[in-house]
C-alpha cells in the first residue's frame, strides 16, 4: 500500500467519491463558522475600523492562490517524473481554483485599500506579483485549452509550470527591487511580534482551514471531472476508429 496506488484513475475516483462529501461538508462548516465568527463576533481594529473584517477573506485567499500554484508545481513534477495521469489532471483541475483565489485576494485587497491607503491599486510589490501570478494562471489554462492531444498538453503545461515557477519567483524579487511597498508585513508568522492580535487570530485560522478544505474538495471534484471527460474522449475516439 503506497501513495502511488491513488494514481490509478478508477481507484482515485472510488476513494475521492467517499471522501468528497466529508471534505466538502467540513469546508462549508469551517467557512461558515470562521466567517460568521469573524464578521459578527470580533471587535473592530482601533485604526482600521470595521475594514479589518476583510482579513478573513483576503489572507486565506492569498495563501491559497500561492499554494495552488505550488500544488500544481508538485503535480507537474510528479507527471514529468512518474507519468501518473491523475497528477497531470489534478494540476489542470487546480488552475482555475487558484486563479479565482488570486482574483478574490486582489479584489478584496483593492476594496480594502480604497479607504485605507486612499487608492484602489498601488504598484506595490505584493500587489504586482499577485497580478503577475494571475497572468501565469491565465497562460497556463490557455495552453491546456489550446492543445488537442491530452498527453502532449500535460507535458507542455507541466514544463510551462516549471519554467513559470522560476520566473514567477524571479518576478517577485525583481518587483521588490523595483518599487517600495505599502503593504504591511506578513499577517501570520512564527514571529509573535509581527502577528495579528489574538482576537483576530482564531477566526482567521478557522477561515484558512475552510479555504484549504474548499480547495481540496474542488480539486477532487474537478479532477474526477477531468478523468471522466478524458475517458469519454478515449471511448468516442475508439468508436470512431471502429
Amino acid at each position, binding site marked *: 500500500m503506497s501513495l502511488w496506488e491513488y494514481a490509478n484513475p478508477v481507484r482515485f475516483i472510488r476513494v475521492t467519491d467517499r471522501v468528497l462529501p466529508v471534505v466538502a461538508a467540513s469546508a462549508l462548516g469551517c467557512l461558515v463558522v470562521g466567517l460568521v465568527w469573524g464578521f459578527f463576533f470580533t471587535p473592530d481594529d482601533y485604526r482600521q475600523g*470595521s475594514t479589518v473584517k476583510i482579513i478573513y477573506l483576503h489572507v486565506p485567499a492569498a495563501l491559497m492562490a500561492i499554494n495552488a500554484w505550488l500544488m500544481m508545481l508538485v503535480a507537474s513534477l510528479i507527471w514529468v517524473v512518474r507519468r501518473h495521469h491523475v497528477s497531470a489532471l489534478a494540476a489542470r483541475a487546480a488552475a482555475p481554483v487558484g486563479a479565482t483565489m488570486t482574483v478574490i485576494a486582489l479584489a478584496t485587497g483593492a476594496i480594502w485599500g480604497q479607504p485605507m491607503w486612499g487608492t484602489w491599486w498601488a504598484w506595490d510589490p505584493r500587489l504586482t506579483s499577485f497580478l503577475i501570478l494571475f497572468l501565469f494562471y491565465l497562460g497556463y489554462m490557455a495552453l491546456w485549452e489550446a492543445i488537442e492531444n491530452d498527453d502532449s498538453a500535460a507535458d507542455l503545461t507541466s514544463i510551462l509550470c516549471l519554467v513559470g515557477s522560476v520566473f514567477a519567483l524571479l518576478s517577485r524579487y525583481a518587483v521588490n527591487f523595483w518599487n517600495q511597498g505599502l503593504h504591511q508585513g506578513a499577517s501570520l508568522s512564527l514571529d509573535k511580534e509581527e502577528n495579528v492580535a489574538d482576537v483576530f487570530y482564531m477566526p482567521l485560522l478557522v477561515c484558512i482551514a475552510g479555504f484549504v478544505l474548499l480547495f481540496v474538495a474542488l480539486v477532487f471534484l474537478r479532477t474526477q471531472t477531468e478523468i471522466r471527460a478524458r475517458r469519454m474522449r478515449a471511448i468516442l475516439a475508439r468508436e470512431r476508429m471502429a
Partner: protein
Amino acid sequence: MIPDLGKYAGTVLSAYGVSLVLIVALVLVSVWRARRVRAALDEVERRRKSA
C-alpha cells in the same frame, strides 16, 4: 443582528459580497460541469454495453 460597521459598511459588505459570489460561482461551475460530464460518460458507457 448586523454589527455596527461604522462608516466602512459599504467597503466590508462589498468585499464579502464579491468574494462569496466568486466562490459560489466557482463551486457551481465545478459541480455543474461534473454532473454534465458524469451524465455524458454514463450515457456513452451504456451505449457501448448495449451495442
